[in-house]
């Protein structure tokens, strides 16, 4: 694997020789790949392959053990503590375990992203939140609290939260795992339409159906390693 010339206009994510160890567990081993702007990128692999870990490295919930990574122009190995929130605000993240705040309503959970981003106008927040909740089919439950939602409903709220800020990069960790095929299709279509508006999408999934749908690039992880032609990632 040669290090390719880096063009920040073209490449939104670059991982070079990235490894992550948890004690004796090798969650990721020498992973190298690029994601271009406006790609629709799949990460697949069996349970425990390191998909979520890879995502966590990208939004810095975890720090890589070795290697070199750039996300949206920021070098993750050298990023300063106060730059981390700036990076995260540029991303829209769907967490595998949703990470909804149980004491806040669906509306407030989604709206929090906008508050964090510094949007103070109550009306703007209200319009945008209700709009995205409408899209995921949860507008009528906007004042419910997450523990009273079904698994699939929580997942749809998590997707709404990732999309509400119109991020340039969406990282979605199994965004359709708890959804029935129809709802999954709806969410997928949402991501597709965001993609068509210029957003880069990175999805981990093991949904055969999703994988059969179009994407512009993908990697397959297994036991932390890329499996591809001659060990290369893509």
């Amino acid at each position, binding site marked *: 694997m040669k290090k390719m010339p880096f063009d920040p206009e073209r490449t939104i994510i670059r991982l070079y020789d990235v490894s992550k160890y948890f004690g004796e567990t090798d969650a990721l081993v020498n992973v190298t790949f690029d994601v271009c702007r406006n790609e629709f990128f799949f990460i697949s692999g069996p349970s425990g392959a390191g998909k979520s870990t890879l995502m966590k490295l990208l*939004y810095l*919930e975890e720090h890589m053990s070795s290697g070199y990574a750039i996300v949206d122009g920021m070098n993750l190995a050298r990023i300063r503590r*106060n730059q981390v*929130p*700036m990076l*995260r*605000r540029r*991303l829209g*993240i769907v*967490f595998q375990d949703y*990470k*909804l*705040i*149980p*004491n*806040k309503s669906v509306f407030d959970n989604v709206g*929090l*992203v906008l*508050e*964090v*981003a510094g949007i*103070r106008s109550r009306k703007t927040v209200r319009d945008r939140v209700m709009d995205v909740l409408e899209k995921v089919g949860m507008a009528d439950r906007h004042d419910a609290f997450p523990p009273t939602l079904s698994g699939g409903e929580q997942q749809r709220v998590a997707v709404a*939260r990732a999309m509400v800020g119109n991020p340039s990069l969406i990282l979605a960790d199994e965004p359709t795992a708890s959804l029935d095929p129809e709802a999954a299709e709806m969410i997928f279509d949402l991501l597709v339409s965001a993609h068509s508006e210029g957003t880069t999408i990175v999805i981990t999934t093991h949904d055969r159906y999703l994988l059969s749908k179009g994407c512009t690039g993908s990697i397959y992880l297994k036991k932390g390693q890329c499996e591809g032609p001659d060990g290369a990632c893509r």
Partner: protein
Amino acid sequence: MKDTIRRGAADFLNYKYLHGICVITIALSVFVISAFGLFLINAGDLMVSWKKGIRIIAYLEPGADEETRDLIIGEMETYPEVAGVEYVSSGEALDWLKEEIGRQTALLEGLTDNPLPDAVEVSLSGDIDGADAISSLAARMEGLDGVADVEYARKWIERFGGIYNLFRLTSMILIGLIVSAVMMIVANTIRLILYSRIDEIKITRIIGADDAFIKYPLYFEGMMLGFLGGLAGLVLLYAAFFITVPQLSSAGLLVYFQVRFLPWNLVLLILLISMTVGWIGCYFSIRRFLRF
């Protein structure tokens, strides 16, 4: 700022159970401290009322005229430690002595000539401090023209002064220890409450909130907790005070002095301190939770 307060207030309502417990804990803490403070203030008053009972007697030189006596009295009245000055003629002094000696007045019955000198009796204001101050006052009085001799209960005052100082010092140490212990208890409670909210804090950070976004509403909440807790604690104390004091009175225990509640400035100080403790508790706890 407005936004911080709005979010702080919203959160405040969001965790009713946790915040209820926290307010109760702070209220009880403030109650403990201020009850103890109330106790000390009144014990201090008691001490002062005792000190006011101290008398220093200056015997005038035999045959001192009225002018000298007035001069001496006038001089003594300028001393800040002195609350009152009273002239005691030799006749009054003899009556007083007879009373003092009590049943053995037989002893003095044979006297036709009064051997006692005229005297001036000085009572002290409450803010004289310690046996040394009293003996220096006595020395000053003795140095006045026309004063033959000064007498006061030196031994008793020394002993009393020692005990008073002991009481004051130990109760100061004690209140210092109690206040720090209780502050740590409050900080611990706030820590536990933040611990219960750690998931929320983590999630808020991971969707891009910077430290300021998380910290300032929590500081506001901490101060609100401190304020409400302090208020509740003082109300509790006030209630306890107004239940207890009339009973003490009716039990005939308050004949010698007046029990009083905490003065207003102390009440305000307590509120201020409990707000500060709420804030400080948040401040130090958050640091730990922002490491994630």
